[in-house]
């Protein structure tokens, strides 16, 4: 885990109307990744198409990173707003690179170094006014003493797609001019070195959470997706729209979220693994159909890339506010699984498990991701497809039935009944959203309803076995500690870093992050909670939704550690909460 001096945090900001901010950040992220570094990025973008402040942050180090980094080593400011917003986050020895055409910098009392680059003048001298961001990238390449070949490769990868050769050429010119400006203005010795690796390192890929998740969908054998555009989930739909045709899959862009969910349910009814992906407001619309899938016992996978609410809230900001909706949304008890991806890498590996849960137990599954994890690109080990084990749903076997009549919803010890697939002779039934007889015919007797409620609920109890057998959680820190920290989803990143950093101060913490929230790994949790005097629950929502679930289940208090501002936790915030808990124990 990196400590001060071992990693580098670069933040770039400007107005989105001017453009090029995310491109600058991404190009630099690719460059660092290709130079052999581990990269972790985060960004905030306005919800408007043009105009508004954009920030892109990249952290790079030799060791794997799990959080975005709290303080800045380098701030690249295209405009005054960026400077005003962030200069106080710069480390005292940090470096400010600014567009000296637009920005006069006065920072009396701050020790950090300042380098002004007349980005617009340089770009205009090339008759390419919009290329000022390439000038900035070129300047950074020189300031960090990086390899220009890698820079050219990175720019070509980011901009080369479908672009005319001349257009790429002027961008590369601007890159070169930025490089030369620093060479002449600053001298031979660059002020910063990236901690570049000395030997060849293990191979890495650089992907976003959404991309990883979509790859997980393909690896899971899913070939049917219906979606409806919504930030920040659309990328999953777009990814599958591009890849599915190669492999005989179908992606339908539906007319709304309800239709998207309905198409996925219809697709699954025919025996296919089927899914949809959305964000909070879309999940709210899908709830009726998800309850119906629970009642009809139809497998269904719904990805919810959470963003800030309530209502349309802040589409481009992160939140974990949909847990309660995911677990309990719907009329009456409608059992479903809730799975939470913990990292960009986990976005790939958790999807096959989520599909297995829905297929094996014939109840819907909601996979929770979040805006920050979904849009952030990060270096991870190339996905190991051999780790993916796809389980099949229990399909009715007419031969074994030996002429006996088929009953779709016949009761069984784990609540799962064999499903007949349209096309199978003798297996005809109607999937029924009304309460029903085992045959599927509508029925409203008190006894039958009570029996069916127990049948459907029993699947959650049975699935605990799958969750525990596959160890679908992450555990770290010191098991002997009396301080326990819990959470779910991407909060694990800053928590992991906080736990490691505090260990160097002598504060021991034990952490557990279940990847399946419904059903919880009960034995694992009971073991974890034993002997814990301080129990913290970290999550990015206002009311402490997971903490309240745990309190209700275990009837003991949990300390809520919440962030609900729309930006990810800082490691320092988690550390502060743990220090408080530590102080209480004394």
């Amino acid at each position, binding site marked *: 885990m990196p400590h001060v001096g071992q990693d580098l945090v670069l933040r770039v900001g400007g107005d989105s109307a001017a453009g090029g901010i995310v491109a600058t950040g991404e190009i630099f992220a690719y460059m660092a990744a290709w130079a052999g570094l581990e990269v972790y990025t985060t960004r905030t973008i306005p919800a408007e198409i043009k105009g508004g402040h954009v920030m892109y942050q990249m952290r790079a180090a030799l060791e794997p990173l799990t959080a975005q980094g709290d303080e800045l080593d380098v701030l690249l400011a295209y405009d005054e707003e960026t400077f005003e917003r962030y200069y106080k986050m710069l480390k005292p020895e940090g470096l400010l690179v600014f567009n000296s055409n637009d920005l006069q910098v006065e920072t009396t009392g701050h020790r950090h170094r300042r380098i002004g680059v007349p980005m617009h003048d340089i770009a205009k001298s090339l008759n390419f006014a919009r290329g000022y961001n390439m000038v900035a990238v070129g300047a950074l390449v020189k300031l960090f003493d990086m390899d220009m070949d890698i820079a050219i490769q990175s720019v070509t990868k980011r901009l080369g797609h479908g672009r005319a050769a001349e257009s790429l050429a002027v961008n590369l010119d601007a890159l070169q001019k930025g490089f030369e400006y620093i060479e002449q203005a600053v001298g031979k010795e660059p002020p910063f070195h990236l901690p570049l690796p000395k030997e060849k390192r293990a191979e890495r*890929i650089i992907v976003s959470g959404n991309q990883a998740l979509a*790859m997980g969908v*393909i690896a899971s054998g899913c070939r049917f997706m219906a979606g409806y555009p919504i930030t920040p989930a659309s990328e999953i739909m777009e990814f599958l729209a591009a890849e599915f045709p190669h492999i005989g899959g179908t992606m339908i862009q*539906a007319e*709304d979220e309800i239709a998207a969910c309905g198409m996925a349910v219809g697709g699954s*009814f*025919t025996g296919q693994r089927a899914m949809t992906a959305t964000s909070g407001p879309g999940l709210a619309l899908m709830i009726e159909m998800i309850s119906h899938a629970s009642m009809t016992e139809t497998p269904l996978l719904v990805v919810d890339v959470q963003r800030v609410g309530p209502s349309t809230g802040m589409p481009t900001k992160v939140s974990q506010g949909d847990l309660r909706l995911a677990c309990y949304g719907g009329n009456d008890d409608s059992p479903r699984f809730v799975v939470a991806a913990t990292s960009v890498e986990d976005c790939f590996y958790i999807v096959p498990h989520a599909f297995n849960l829905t297929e094996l137990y014939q109840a819907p599954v909601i996979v929770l991701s979040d805006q920050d994890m979904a849009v952030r690109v990060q270096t991870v080990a190339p996905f190991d497809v051999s780790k993916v084990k796809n389980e099949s749903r229990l399909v009715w076997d007419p031969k074994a039935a030996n002429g006996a009549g088929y009953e779709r919803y016949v009761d069984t010890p784990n609540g799962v009944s064999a499903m007949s697939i349209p096309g199978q002779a003798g297996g005809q039934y109607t999937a029924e959203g009304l309460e029903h007889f085992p045959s599927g015919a509508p029925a409203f007797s008190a006894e039958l309803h009570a029996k069916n409620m127990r049948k459907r609920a029993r699947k959650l109890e049975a699935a605990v076995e799958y969750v525990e057998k596959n160890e679908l959680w992450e555990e770290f820190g010191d098991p002997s500690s009396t301080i326990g920290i819990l959470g779910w989803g991407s909060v694990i990143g800053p928590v992991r870093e906080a736990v490691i950093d505090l260990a160097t101060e002598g504060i021991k913490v034990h952490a557990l992050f279940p990847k399946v929230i419904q059903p919880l790994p009960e034995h694992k949790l009971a073991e974890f909670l034993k002997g814990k005097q301080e129990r913290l629950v970290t999550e990015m929502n206002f009311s402490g939704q997971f903490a309240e679930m745990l309190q209700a289940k275990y009837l003991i208090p949990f300390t809520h550690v919440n962030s609900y501002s729309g930006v990810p936790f800082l490691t320092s915030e988690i550390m502060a909460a743990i220090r408080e808990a530590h102080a209480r124990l004394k």
Partner: protein
Amino acid sequence: MTSIPLTSTVAPLLNQVKLKPNDYKSEVKPIWCPGCGDFGVLAAFYRALSDLGVSPEKAVIASGIGCSGRFPAFVESYGFHGVHGRALPLATGIKMANPDLMVAAIGGDGDAFSIGAGHLPHAARRNIDLTYIVMDNEIYGLTKGQASPTSPVGLSPKGAPYGEIKAAKSTPYGNSDAPINPIVMALAYGATYIARGFSSKPREMVELIKRGLTHKGFAFIQIYSPCVTFFDTYDHFKEKTAPLPADHNSRDKIAAFKMALDEEHLYLGEFYTEDRPSMAENARAIRERAGSNFSMDSLIERYKG
């Protein structure tokens, strides 16, 4: 991994079995009121499947909520009784995930034209290869007699411009909302087969349903299906309906609009039909364009430096 097969012609689904209409009756007995028009539609549907020789296991019927929602359970086939208004998305998912099935969707006027109205244009423009039968009684039946999107202006508990009214509880001062015209809607949305039937005309209905089921693309069939309990319109429809003139050209969209807008007659028959690639055919064309050069390893490889 199972990829989704893509055949779009219904021909392989025809003449597979020799079954009588009664063989398509399931063990579930209809819950409809005696005299309900829906019985006629159900009987016509059995007859259509029988005439076409469709294997029960190859047919799937999706529905929403309401009296019409119960329809799939009464047919010896696969069925999906969904949520209110969503028969078309469910049917679309079923057909596109397995184009080798014969798929029908069933709705009522409330289900199809109120809560589910947002799906009709899209099923039509996609030309999804399925048959959508809407049993139109111009009232909400299962919720006991409120105005529907096809109810006439003036409908109130005390009377109606036509038909015997016993409810219309949601419009105690008379319905002031103009009814929509489903045939005009379907024409405007681009449905490629558009017809109207009447549940008291069984033979004609059977022909329309058969044409719909064998049509390549989206078939929309409105069927007047009176509700004897809350709004008995049998006499009205008997009086007002008339077969489309023999010289009506069902390839002429403007003529179809004119016939659908006629206020003197409620025409029955095939208003319009056209040939257009179905959704499954378009999906197949996309696959051919994309090619099948794919491996998980090469996908991951793309994200390396």
